[in-house]
């Protein structure tokens, strides 16, 4: 459950105040599939970062699963991110020197989970994502689709309740992009809230709920039956 109310995010650009988010109210239920669309600079990435606790609102409150998370300090926010939120990025952000398996393992390493459990969970996930034969490959030895699947595996290994994807298909061709979307949508079926930021109307149009943003405001909020 994500509840944003009266959220403002103001950046100071060259002495001038620019509102990336303005008086934004948004409630997302558990296991919802939402896409956020809009032109560049409309504030959709800022909103995503806000939900992912990478950014703090200048004013307003953000409640995650009923808890006010805006007042938490950096250490506590990091813990919430680790346990409840998964990120998928346009440019994958895999650590180049680590193998696919270790990249997926990384959140569990940070969480201090024992090596035995880590290995079991990574193996299971690699298997279900069809990456078992790529486990010991480094990112530069993987195709774009494989890299994004590794990144999704990394985002889900901690079993987060919220998955935030910023243009996940932006660096992929259409066919691979569709495969990646299918994988993400499969996760929604398992109870994850998926928030997707995209330029692409076709990708965005697949979501059950679609938000359009302009100038830091949500200008339309439409729902449709699952595709």
């Amino acid at each position, binding site marked *: 459950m994500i509840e944003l109310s009266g959220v403002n995010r103001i950046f100071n650009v060259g002495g001038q105040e620019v509102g990336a988010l303005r008086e934004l109210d948004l409630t997302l239920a558990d296991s919802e599939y939402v896409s956020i669309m809009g032109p560049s600079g409309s504030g959709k990435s800022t909103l995503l*970062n806000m939900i992912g606790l990478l950014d703090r609102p200048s004013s307003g409150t953000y409640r995650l699963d009923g808890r006010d998370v805006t007042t938490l300090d950096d250490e506590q926010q990091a813990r919430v991110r680790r346990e409840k939120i998964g990120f998928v990025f346009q440019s994958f952000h895999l650590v180049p020197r680590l193998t696919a398996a270790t990249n997926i393992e*990384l959140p569990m390493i940070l969480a201090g989970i024992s090596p035995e459990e880590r290995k079991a969970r990574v193996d299971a996930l690699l298997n279900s994502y069809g990456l078992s034969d790529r486990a010991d490959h480094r990112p530069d030895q993987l195709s774009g689709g494989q890299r994004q699947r590794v990144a999704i595996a990394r985002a889900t290994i901690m079993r987060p309740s919220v998955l935030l994807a910023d243009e996940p298909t932006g660096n992929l061709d259409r066919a691979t992009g569709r495969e990646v979307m299918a994988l993400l949508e499969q996760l929604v079926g398992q109870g994850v809230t998926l928030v997707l930021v995209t330029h692409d109307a076709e990708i965005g149009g697949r979501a059950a709920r679609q938000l359009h943003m302009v100038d830091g405001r949500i200008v339309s909020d439409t729902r449709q039956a699952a595709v």
Partner: protein
Amino acid sequence: MKLSDVIRFAGGSLQGTRSRTLLMILAMSIGVAAVVILTALGEGARRYVTGQFSSLGTNLIIVFPGRSETAGSSPGMLLGQTPRDLRLEDATALLRSSHIRRIAPVAVGSTQASQNARNREVVVVGSTADFMTIRHMELSQGQFLPALDPREASPVCVLGATIKQELFGNEQAVGAWLRLGDRRFRVIGVLDKQGESMGFNTDELVIIPVASAHMLFNTQALLRVLIEAKSREQIEPARKEAEEILIKQHNGERDVTVVTQDAVLATFDRVLRALTLAVAGIAAISLSVAGVLIMNVMLIAVAQRTQEIGLLKALGAPPHEIRRIFFAEAALLSLIGSVVGLLLGEAGSMVIRQLYPVLPAYAPWWSVGAACATALGTGILFSVWPARRAAKLDPVMALSRR
């Protein structure tokens, strides 16, 4: 994050930038090796000097004529008198002290020594039987001076190893006659080869009874009196008593100097120890330079790995974990650097010992410990700033950087 994972992660990122890591380790290890080698040299010099001193004898007190102090002027100086000579009676009087085990008067002069056609200038030492014991000398042939009354002359002599070789070659020396100046002496013993100690080469001496030396050089004066105290604890009381006895002998005039070998030794020890410390300090500067280098490299690493840091934050790494990762990298660099440096330093000391066998160039444990501690300390200290910088990075900015 588990400690083992922190170390593995840090090790992994060090391996990622291999040449930079190797250069850092090189800088660190040169610093550590410099401390180890330089202190090994200093310590070696100190041990060499103290070793030289103790080869002179143990619990040794040395008396020589004249005051070494220059405070004020004595009436004697105004009248143009030289200090009174040290005489044989003064030496024997010293035996009255209960703290003194034995004494050896020393008179020195040089004269021509000749045997058959061979002759050379030699240094002649006049002393008594106890001289050998006090100075820790060994005989290779024959015997030392007989235990006579010091006032009794006797035409016998003991040769240093070199003198024996030069005057007699491989012939039998003991029992032969040797001419010293205008007198003849019978060789009764030959000293073992001892080499130089404190610039006094016993291999090039001829030793005769002190009374004979006085006759040979036509003098009553002694150059030194060597005193051996009964134990280490009695050195100081023996010194005081010796001074009192000699003042009494000289009608209340304080015109001799009595020094203990310990005092001289302690001074040398202090000077050389200070020197070792100073040298170690200079080497430590190179270590802290290595620390600054580590800081530099860590700052570059933070700049280059901005995206990775942003990612770690997005994955839920709290600031203190980010700091730990960078600390661990610095600590690993310094640790490997210190170990390599220690090995280099020990190898260097070994080479020095091979080249100069007389110098016991072993680095003292404190310098080894201090070098490693300084390396680790500076490495970690200088990583505080970069690590904090990394932990403070704004994740949104860090991730969006291309």
